[in-house]
Every structure is written in structure tokens, then in C-alpha cells.
């Protein structure tokens, strides 16, 4: 049965109806109730408009004009091992592949002490984990893309580190949307559980393969247990066909350390929603980000650190470079709740505009309800340092090369935070390529 209408909301709702009609009798499951709640929420809210504070700089109305397929149970695709070879990073041997929202065992390859499996499998095998963590952190009520994901995602990757587990080798999560046969809208749902005293690293990338537009909506929930160390890198360097919505919500327990590093070099449209809630003392949260916009890229980073408990620290630095007619948005919020005394929270957003037609929207937000805290935020927007450019040129370095050197140096502060050497090197190379070096 073809989906009627070309309006985004109608498409989503009717595909949910089609799915429900095929359920025959499983409509009473707890799992299905979660979906129904989520779709109802989306139905009542619809797509956000510019009037919504969280979307005031980013218009998603274009989704209404996209003629995408939404056969949510379709698992056929044309992705091959050769495709994966092009996406792997040398030196990173463990990777898990998601194609069109579905975990793909054949294309994945890993030898790790982490528990890695499809969400579908985990739903049966890891009932306790699901009860505790599934849909517990995602903000379905403030982000309709999360509610769409909750309603319409059927798979993704489940990653778990058991208590005390230390895994040195990073795991690469490769998320692919195959658009060779037409415009697609695909959801993946991931659950990452880091039990107490565990320590591991994740590296996430997203790719659109094919000549049509691919919309990817990925929701990831992360539990960061007591005294756990988790480094989570996202590298977004998709083609101009890629439209990417990613929500990543973490809950952190006492003495834990979560570091997120989000680097965006390309994509037609990228919206990252990143959040963390503190649930214990002595927690550290580090958010780093770098984005480079060219052409008509739109790159939007929203972050939120919820300081709900005392004696914790958050530290955030996002840097952007916007060229051509690209748009960059940074909206970072720090919420310090009344109980969160002795909080240290720092946030900084810096941007460089390369052209008159590029644009940046920076909105740092501090909401503080505790009195004994140290918080600061700042944002700055400038252009390439003319004195530095003159200095480099005065040493014989051509202008374009000099600009590239300065921009690479600017990004390096963020890239250098990555502790995985092959990935740090790989991303540096990709940035160099971007700047024509």
C-alpha cells in the first residue's frame, strides 16, 4: 500500500498505521505501548517550527518536501564489504555496521570483550538491561525526533561493558543509509551500557551511500556507571546527500567520566542533540566539538548538561569554521539545579567566519539555581586573524595555504583531545584534505 500525501507528519503517521495493522495481536505488549505513546506525542507536536526555542535557528520544514520511502520493516540493501572497506579506519579493527537502521552482522567484524549485538537480539537476551535503561534517558517529550525514533525504530546496536571491564580497543560504529533506490528516512536506536568501573572508547560515523537523499535519525541512550570512563567520538563527514539527526542522551553515576567529541566536516544538514544528566557526586563531563561548514551545509549542535547533583564538573568547548554559505548553530545549555552545590561548569563556543555569506548562531545558556558554584560561559565569533595571515605570507606561504594552516591549527585544539591515535591522525588528515592541504 503506497503512503499517501507528501507531508512529513502524514507520512510518519501513516507508516505507523501500516506497521500497527501488521501487528495482529501484539498490540498489548509493553514495548508497543511505548511506541504508541511516542507517536501520539509526535502527532500532537508535529515538526518543530522556528517558534520553538530549541529550533529557532534551524528550519526543518524542508522535510515536508521530501518524497521518501518509509517501509520500516524493509531490510534489503545493496551495501557490500567493499563499501565498508572504504569507511574503515586503519588501525581500528573492531567495527559494527548498521544499515538503514538495522544491525548487520555480516558486514560487522569485531573481537572485543564488550557485549555487542543487535537491539532486536538484546530485547530478548537482556531484558533486565532494557527494563533499566531503554527509553529511560531519551527526551521524547522535548524532541520529536526522539519520539519518532521511539515509535519507528526497530533495531540498532546494543553495547555493554560488564562491571570492571576495561577494553583498550575502540569500537567503530558505522551507520549507513543506502539511498541507491530512492530517498530514505531511516531510524536506528542504540543502547550503550557502561557498568560500574568499566572503561572503553567508541567511535561513531555516519554515511549516506547512493545518489538520493538519506535522512538518518539516530537515538542513542548511554548509561555511565560508577567510576566509569567512556570516550565517545562522533565523526560526521557525510556526502551532500546526507541529512542527519542524532540525539545522544547519557546518565552519569558517581565518579564517572564521560567525554564526547563531535567533529563535523560535511553533510547537507546535521543536527546533534547531546545531553547528560548527573546522578551522583564527583562526575566529570567533557564536551568537545568542531564543525566546518562549506557550500550550503547546515550544522546545528545543541548540548545540555544537567547538573542535578553536587561536586561535579562539566567542561565544554565547541569551535566552528563556516565558509561559503554555510550556517553553524551552537546552543549549549548548562542547568545547575538547587542541590548541585560546588558545581564547576565551563562552556565556550568560538567561531570563525570565512565569508560574508556564512552565518553563525551562538546561544550559550546558563541556568543556575544553586548559590555556591563556579560557572562561566563565553562565545566569540571572528574572522581569520589578519596579522597571523600577514605573518605567514611574509614568510612566503601563499594566502590559501596560510589560511589552511591557521584553520588546521584552530581545529587541532579539539582534535587533540581524542586519545585514540589512529583516529586522531585520520581526522587530522580529513581536515587537511578539506582545506586542500
Amino acid at each position, binding site marked *: 500500500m503506497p503512503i499517501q500525501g507528501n507531508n512529513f507528519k502524514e507520512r510518519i503517521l501513516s507508516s505507523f498505521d501500516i506497521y500497527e495493522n501488521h501487528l495482529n495481536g501484539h498490540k498489548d505488549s509493553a514495548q508497543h505501548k511505548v511506541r504508541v505513546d511516542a507517536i501520539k506525542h509526535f502527532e500532537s507536536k508535529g515538526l518543530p517550527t522556528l517558534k520553538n526555542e530549541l529550533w529557532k535557528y534551524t528550519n526543518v520544514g524542508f522535510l515536508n518536501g521530501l518524497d521518501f520511502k518509509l517501509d520500516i520493516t524493509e531490510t534489503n540493501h545493496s551495501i557490500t564489504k567493499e563499501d565498508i572497506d572504504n569507511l574503515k579506519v586503519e588501525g581500528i579493527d573492531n567495527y559494527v555496521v548498521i544499515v538503514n537502521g538495522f544491525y548487520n552482522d555480516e558486514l560487522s567484524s569485531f573481537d572485543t570483550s564488550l557485549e555487542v549485538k543487535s537491539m532486536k537480539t538484546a530485547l530478548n537476551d537482556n531484558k533486565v538491561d532494557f527494563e533499566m535503561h531503554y527509553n529511560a534517558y531519551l527526551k521524547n517529550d522535548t524532541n520529536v525526533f526522539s519520539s519518532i525514533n521511539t515509535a519507528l525504530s526497530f533495531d540498532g546496536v546494543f553495547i555493554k561493558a560488564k562491571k570492571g571491564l576495561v577494553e583498550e580497543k575502540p569500537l567503530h560504529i558505522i551507520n549507513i543509509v543506502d539511498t541507491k533506490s530512492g530517498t530514505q528516512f531511516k531510524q536506528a536506536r542504540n543502547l550503550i551500557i557502561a557498568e560500574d568501573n568499566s572503561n572503553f572508547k567508541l567511535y561513531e560515523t555516519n554515511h549516506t551511500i547512493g545518489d538520493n537523499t538519506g535522512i538518518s535519525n539516530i537515538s542513542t541512550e548511554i548509561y555511565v556507571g560508577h567510576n566509569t570512563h567512556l570516550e565517545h567520538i562522533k565523526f560526521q563527514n557525510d556526502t551532500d546527500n546526507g541529512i542527519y539527526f542524532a540525539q545522544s542522551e547519557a546518565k552519569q553515576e558517581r565518579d564517572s567520566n564521560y567525554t564526547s567529541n563531535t567533529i563535523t566536516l560535511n553533510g547537507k544538514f546535521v543536527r546533534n542533540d547531546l545531553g547528560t544528566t548527573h546522578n551522583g557526586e564527583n562526575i566529570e563531563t567533557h564536551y568537545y566539538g568542531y564543525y566546518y561548514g562549506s557550500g550550503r551545509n547546515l550544522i546545528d549542535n545543541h548540548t545540555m548538561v544537567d547538573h542535578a547533583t553536587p561536586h561535579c564538573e562539566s567542561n565544554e568547548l565547541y569551535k566552528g569554521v563556516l565558509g561559503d554559505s554555510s550556517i553553524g548553530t551552537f546552543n549549549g545549555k548548562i542547568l545547575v539545579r538547587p542541590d548541585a552545590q560546588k558545581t564547576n561548569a565551563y562552556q565556550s563556543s568560538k567561531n570563525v567566519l570565512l565569508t560574508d555569506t556564512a552565518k553563525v548562531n551562538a546561544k550559550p545558556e546558563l541556568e543556575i539555581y544553586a548559590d555556591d558554584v563556579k560557572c562561566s560561559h563565553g562565545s566569540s565569533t571572528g574572522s581569520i*586573524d*589578519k*596579522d*597571523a595571515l*600577514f*605573518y*605567514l*605570507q*611574509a*614568510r*612566503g*606561504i*601563499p*594566502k590559501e*595555504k*596560510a589560511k589552511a*594552516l*591557521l584553520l*588546521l*591549527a*584552530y581545529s*587541532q*585544539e579539539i582534535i587533540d583531545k581524542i586519545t585514540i591515535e589512529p583516529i586522531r591522525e585520520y581526522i587530522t588528515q580529513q581536515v587537511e584534505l578539506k582545506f586542500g592541504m
Partner: protein
Amino acid sequence: MSLLKVENLQAKIEDNQILKGLNLEVNPGEVHAIMGPNGSGKSTLASVIAGREDYEINGGRILFEGEDITDLEVHERAQKGIFLAFQYPVEIPGVSNANFMKSSVNAIREARGEEPLSAKDFLARMREKSALVEIDKSFMSRAVNEGFSGGEKKRNEIFQLAMLEPKLALLDETDSGLDIDALKIVSQGVNTLRNENNAFVLITHYQRLLNYIVPDFVHVLADGKIVKSGGKELALELEEKGYDWVKDHAIEEQTA
């Protein structure tokens, strides 16, 4: 043929006419000193010769080895062999000194149709030249000028000069802020690099420098023009009598 010939140069920034018809000729093998009061246009002259685009040239021209370079870009001039040691060297976070020099040396070589230096040759050159100005090799991995003391920045300028071996070096107050030991080191560096094919223009406020690097000519720049030129003894006379003496003198000469 002269190495540098500045003819009736006029330059302005915004509505500020800073150079008002300046003439200067420098031949290979010569050392010139330019002195003059604060704000008279010395740094402006050096920047304009190096090609800084913020200034509008509204009269005159600059010849380098006989070629009119007035419209060339900054890096093209540097590639031809013009070097400006900055009065205020710029800090460049995130770019190491070594990487900076490698990009610079190789850009200049490329412009001359030469192959890039091998890693080995480059390192050898770095080692030799940093020894010349007594810069510790740990500086090479540090970001360009970032956190350097005033004196270290100036020494780094001379290190770069030594690395690039330009035909014409403009040293804008390289002696300011140097202690006596550093001044000797810098001067010895310059004296080592001097030869019959290259030339130096030293902008300075202090005749002390000229005891170490002895100039062939001393010029006084006041109000956007060279108002007096002479031999090295002019520097001593200036130190004694001050700039007012030259200004009055220049006016007398003009009205005479």
C-alpha cells in the same frame, strides 16, 4: 642595479596619509639604518615594502632588483627574497615553529622551481640556524611565538631570517627589548649572514645596535619622509641632539 628602490612612495590607511613621498635606495652588500620619532612611519614603510594590503599606495612605486613590485602580493615578495622581521612578531597558536618553517622554506623553494627540502636536510638546517641565534631546540616544537618572551620573539625572527636567507632583510626594531647578551647574539647572527649579495635595513631607536652592526648609511624618517641621510656618525649626532634638531634642520634646508 639597486636591490631596492623606493620612489616617491605615498601610502595611507583610512584617511591617514602616513608616507608622504619617500625615497630610498639600497644596494647589495649595504646596511642602512632608519631612525626617527615614534609614529613617523618607519613600520609603515617596512610593512608596505613587504606588501601589507591594509595600506593604500597613492603615489610612487617600489622596485626590487629593477622590477616594479608595488602590486605584488605579500608572499610573492617574500618568495623573491624580501624578509620583514616584525616589530611585534605574531603569535600563532597551534602551528609549531618547525612546521611553520617547513611550510615557509618549501613554499619559497617551490616558487623557485626547486624540490622541497628532505626531512634530513631540513632538520640539519634548523639545527645549524637555531645554534646561530642560540635558540633551544625545544622551541621548534612550540607554537610560533606563543608564550615567548619579548626577547625570544625577536631572536626567533632572526632565526627565521637565517633559515630563509633573503636578499633584503628589513629589521623593524629587532633590538628593542633585548638585553645586552641577546643584542650581541642577534647582532652576531646578522653579521654572519651579511655578504656582498644581500642587504639589511635596520629600523631602530638606539644607536647602541649600530655599534654591533655598523651601517653604511643612516636615514632619519620624520613625518612620512626621509628628512636627512648620512653616514654612521649621524646616529651619534642624533642621539646627542634629538630629532628636533633634524626636523628644524630639514625645514631650514627646505626653506633655504
